[in-house]
């Protein structure tokens, strides 16, 4: 199925939870979903006979600057050979999105990484801890406004 068809399918099923779909004039089309309905949409996309997205290829946190954040899901279907990009748009005031760890186990570490790097909170994740940075690290390094600290645990950072 193409992104347009999947968008139609999702719109019919979920209504207002499906926000928009950009298919014209962009190199890679996507479907945008409301943060509070990601889990249901993900379950539907995995289990529906027409979509069967059994693989979450990649999950990326995003900082679009000016207080706008996002999560991007790249889905792939092995049996049906089609792909889909899902996007969730967040604002700095409310960085909460549903976790899809229960749908695709691979999301476990990807979501921990997005939390570690951007501070995006995945509600329902069973073990949301920092994964790459030390446990006592302050701030979220991949945010565009992140300043490299002068000191770490009392040690001067040499550059």
């Amino acid at each position, binding site marked *: 199925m193409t992104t347009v068809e999947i968008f139609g399918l999702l719109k019919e099923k979920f209504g207002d939870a499906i926000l928009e779909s950009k298919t014209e004039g*962009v*190199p*890679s089309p996507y479907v945008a979903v409301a943060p509070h309905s990601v889990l249901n949409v993900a379950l539907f996309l995995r289990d529906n006979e027409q979509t069967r997205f*059994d*693989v*979450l*290829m*990649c999950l*990326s946190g*995003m*900082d679009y600057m000016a207080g706008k954040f996002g999560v*991007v899901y*790249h889905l792939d279907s*092995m049996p049906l*050979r089609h792909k889909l*990009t899902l996007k969730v748009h967040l604002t700095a005031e409310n960085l909460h999105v549903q976790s899809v760890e229960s749908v*695709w*186990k*691979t999301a*476990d*570490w990807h979501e921990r990484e997005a939390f570690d*790097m951007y501070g995006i909170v995945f509600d329902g994740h*069973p*073990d949301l*801890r*920092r*994964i*790459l*940075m*030390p446990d006592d690290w302050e701030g979220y*390094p*991949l945010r*565009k406004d992140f300043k490299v600290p002068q000191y770490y645990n009392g040690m001067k950072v040499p550059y």
Partner: protein
Amino acid sequence: MITTATTDGPTIRRTETIPGLRRSLRAHEMIVNMGPQHPSTHGVLRLELIVDGEIVVDVIPHIGYLHRCFEKHCEHMTNYQQVVPYADRMDYVAAMSNEFGYVVAAERLLGIKVSDKVEFTRVIMAELSRIASHLIALGTYGMDIGAFTPFLFCMRDREHILDIFETTCGARLLYNYMWIGGLSHDPPASFKDKVRDFCRYFKPKINELNELLSYNKIFIERTAGVGVLPPEVAVNYAVSGPTLRGSGVQWDLRRNDPYSVYDRLQFDIPVGKGIKGRVGDCWDRYMVRVEEMAQSVRIMEQAVEMMPSEGDVQSAIPKRIRPAAGEVYARTETPKGELGYYIVSDGTASPFRVKVKAPSFVNLSALPAMSRGAMISDVVAILGSIDIVLGEVDR
């Protein structure tokens, strides 16, 4: 090093929960740390093993010791091309494959088409790199299990590949060879002959490795039926590469989502069949790598014949790399599995965001699922069989 719970009864005495385990320790359980400095972890990886006697109840991997902000660095580059040497340093035993993935993604973003000569040279380099990476994986795997000799044989054969790399681009480990739109050097006149010689040399060596290690009784006892990863679990964890194919799933991006010129080349996709134990055990994952090396030789033999000798390898390199605002997710099959680059451009000369989906990162996340119920010594065998490179896990 070792923390024990008080064991004067069956009641749970430890009340604080362990991060990652999400429950308190039971009376008979204890924590054993494996790593960060441990020869079997192939780098700086710390595994927290929750063991009940000799049986592993759970594994909690702690990663990040080698984190060096690859993605942040990419955003601070003044040029898309400058990312290539950094990409080398992720999976440092198969650096060519990382570059290949990045240039495929960047060229898709820019809409560049490169000549056949460049494509076939890249394919040959990627396949050589695949063999080199698998040789390291198999050799060190034997060493983890207790067989020292195969490692030396593997390193000897790998040396021939590094020699080809050295004559082609001057470097032996980290190449910066594939550029966006081309290659850094024209392959030397002797390139094709060297590749042909290597193919001829290497084919019998696979049988040698089989005799020495693959069908060795001790090796089979240690790996067959150990660390079974069922196919549906493998797919749900999105593991890729030999780890996925070892579970019997015939999925190879060179065939299933072709990039470069792989759709013009003939090769088979080996999968695990559970000959010695069960489908998806350590031996299957091991054997998939052995068989893949033979397929890589086959690909190179075809590619070297189809590769045009004439042509400029730098003609498609853009003077200024400034993609229009947009994004791309491109994935390639590296020796470890599916390497994905998600590149977002905002129309300036430097990338707005580069996210790397590293195969080792994802494969390692399935380690607890494979290890529960195994013996402590089996964890070493399982970890070796998924062939992680920490440079890529931590980025």
